[in-house]
C-alpha cells in the first residue's frame, strides 16, 4: 500500500512537468496562433476580438494556468479551426485509436510471447532462428511502408479488403470488422517483435539460473517449472508491454495516416497542418498523461507479482 501511495505521489510532479512541456512546446514557436490563422486582410479589431475570445491576449503564465485549470476539469476550449469543442473531437478520435491499439496489443503480445517462449525453449535450433528472424523483422519494418504494401496486395492487386477508412456506422458488423484487419496487423508488428525478443532473452537468462535446475532436481514436472519461469520473467515483460501499449496509443499517427483512420493520430496530424493550437495541446497532453498513468499501473502490477520491487 505504501508503495502504491508513494508511486502515485511520484507521478504527480511528472504530470505537471508534462503539462509544462506541452505548453512550452506549443509556445516556443514565435507568433500568436491567431495571427497565423487570420487572413491578412482582417481588420485589427477583429483580430483583437479573436485573441480575446480564445484567451491569447493574456500573458503566457496566465494562459498556462488558465489552460491547466480548465484542462483539469476536462475543458480544453474550442478548436481554433472550426470552433467546435476540442473535448468532443478528442474523445471520438481517442475511442477509434483505442479500438486499434487494444486489438493490436492483444495480437502482438500473444504472438510475441509465444514466439519468444518457443525460441528460448528451442535455443540454438531452427525454431529459435525462425522466430528470432521474425521478431527482428518486426522491429526493423517501417510500419507505414508495410501498411502501403498491405494496401497494395490486399486492396489494389486483389480486392480482398477495403483500402482505407473505418466504414459507415450503417454497415453490418462483419463488414466493419474488415476495415480493422489491415491497421491492426500493421500495428501489431512492432509489439510482436519487441516483446518476442525480450521474452526470449529473459527466459534464456532464467533458464541459466540455478533454481531451475534445483526445481527439476526436486522432481517437479515440466509445467510447474514453466510456471516458475513465467513468474520470474513476468515483471520486465509486463513493463515493456505497458510501454508498447502506450506507443500504440500515442504513436499510431503514421499508420492512421496511411489507412485514413479517424483516430487521435489523424487528429494530431490535422491539427499540426491547420496550426490548431487548442487541439494540438489537448491531444498531446491527454496522450502523454495516459502514458504516465499506464506506467504507474504497470509499476503497481510489477510490484504485485515481484515483492523484491516493493522497496
Amino acid at each position: 500500500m505504501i508503495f502504491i501511495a508513494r508511486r502515485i505521489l511520484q507521478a504527480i510532479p511528472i504530470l505537471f512537468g508534462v503539462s509544462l512541456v506541452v505548453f512550452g512546446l506549443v509556445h516556443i514557436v514565435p507568433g500568436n496562433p491567431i495571427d497565423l490563422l487570420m487572413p491578412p486582410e482582417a481588420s485589427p479589431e477583429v483580430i483583437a476580438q479573436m485573441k480575446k475570445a480564445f484567451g491569447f491576449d493574456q500573458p503566457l503564465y496566465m494562459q498556462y494556468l488558465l489552460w491547466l485549470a480548465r484542462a483539469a476539469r476536462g475543458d480544453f476550449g474550442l478548436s481554433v479551426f472550426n470552433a467546435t469543442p476540442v473535448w468532443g473531437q478528442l474523445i471520438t478520435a481517442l475511442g477509434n485509436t483505442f479500438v486499434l491499439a487494444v486489438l493490436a496489443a492483444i495480437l502482438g503480445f500473444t504472438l510475441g510471447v509465444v514466439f519468444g517462449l518457443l525460441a528460448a525453449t528451442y535455443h540454438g535450433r531452427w525454431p529459435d532462428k525462425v522466430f528470432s528472424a521474425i521478431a527482428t523483422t518486426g522491429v526493423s519494418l517501417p510500419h507505414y511502408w508495410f501498411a502501403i504494401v498491405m494496401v497494395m496486395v490486399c486492396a489494389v492487386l486483389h480486392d480482398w479488403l477495403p483500402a482505407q477508412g473505418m466504414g459507415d456506422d450503417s454497415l453490418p458488423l462483419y463488414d466493419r470488422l474488415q476495415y480493422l484487419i489491415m491497421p491492426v496487423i500493421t500495428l501489431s508488428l512492432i509489439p510482436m517483435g519487441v516483446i518476442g525478443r525480450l521474452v526470449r532473452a529473459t527466459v534464456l537468462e532464467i533458464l541459466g539460473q540455478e533454481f531451475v535446475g534445483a526445481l527439476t532436481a526436486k522432481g517437479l514436472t515440466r509445467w510447474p517449472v514453466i510456471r516458475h519461469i513465467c513468474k520470474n520473467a513476468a515483471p520486465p515483460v509486463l513493463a515493456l508491454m505497458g510501454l508498447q501499449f502506450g506507443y500504440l496509443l500515442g504513436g499510431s499517427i503514421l499508420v492512421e495516416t496511411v489507412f485514413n483512420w479517424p483516430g487521435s493520430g489523424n487528429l494530431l496530424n490535422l491539427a499540426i497542418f491547420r496550426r490548431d493550437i487548442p487541439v494540438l495541446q489537448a491531444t498531446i497532453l491527454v496522450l502523454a498523461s495516459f502514458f504516465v498513468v499506464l506506467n504507474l499501473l504497470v509499476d503497481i502490477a510489477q510490484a504485485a507479482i515481484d515483492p523484491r520491487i516493493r522497496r
Partner: protein
Amino acid sequence: MSQATIDFIRSRLPVSEEALQAPPAPGYWRAVSQRLARDPVTIAVTIILLAIVFIALGAPLVAGADPYAGNVLMRLKPIGTPGHWLGTDETGRDLWARLCYGGRLSLLAGILPVIISLVIGGFLGILAGYVSGLVGTLIMRTMDVFYAFPSILLAIAICGLLGNGLSNSVIALALVFIPPMVRISETVTTQARQLDFVEAARASGTTTMQIIRHHVLANVLGPILVYATSLISVSIILSAGLSFLGLGVTPPQAEWGLMLNSLRQAIYVQPYVAALPGVMIFVTSMCFNLMSDGFRSAMDVRLNK
C-alpha cells in the same frame, strides 16, 4: 586490529589479492573481434551497410542520371524500362538515381540524431551517475518528464511545431533519444562507480576527472555505444516517417521517406516502383539492427566460454 578492520583495508587496497593471482587478461577487445570474425550474419550485414553508404556517398558516380531532371513523357515507368532500370517516379525522374541520392539525406537524418543524443545524453548520464546528489537528481527527474511522452508523439509534436526541414527533424529526434541515452549511461555509470578498482583509485587520491577518464569511461563506453547503434535503426525509421508525414525534408529533395509519400498515390499505377523507397528503409534499418545484435553478443562477457 579486528578482522573487520583488516577486511575493510583489504577491500580498499589499490590492487586486490585476486587480481594479483589471476592470469593476465587475454585482451577484451581482441576476444570481441575474434568472436565477430566468426559471426557470418554480422559480417554480411556490415558489408551490405557499407555498400549502401558507398552508394549514397558516391551517388554522382553510380546514379548515372540527374535525380531532379523530370520528364512528363516518362512518368511512372515500370521496373526494367530501358534507361531507367528501376523505373521512374510521378514526375518522370529516374528512381535509381533518386534512391542513390536519397540515401545521403536518409542516412544523415537517421544517424545524426543518434550521434547528437550520444554526446549530450552520454555526458549528462555519466555526470548524473557519477556525481549523483542534487545535480544527478535534477537531471534524472527532468528526463522522467520527457520519458512520459511516447517517442513518435514527441518527435512529431516537436517537428510539427518547429516546422519542416532536415535540421528540425534532426533536432526533434535528438531530443527524443536523449532521455533513454541518459538513463542507460546513468545506470552503467552507477554500476561502474561501485567497482572495486574505482573505489581503490578514489581511495588512493585520484581526482574525479581522472577517474572518469581512465576508469569509468573505459567500462561505460562499450554498453553505451552498443545501445546507440541499436537506436540508429529506430532513428532511420522515424526520420523517414517524419518526412513521410511531410514534416521532415522538403520537396524536391530526394529522401526515402518523402519519396515513399509522393509515390503513395502511384500504388494504383506502378505498385512495385512505389514500394521501392520503403524497401531501402527496411533493408537499412534491418541491417543496423542485426549489426547491433552482433556487436552486443560479441561484447557480452557472460557468453565468453
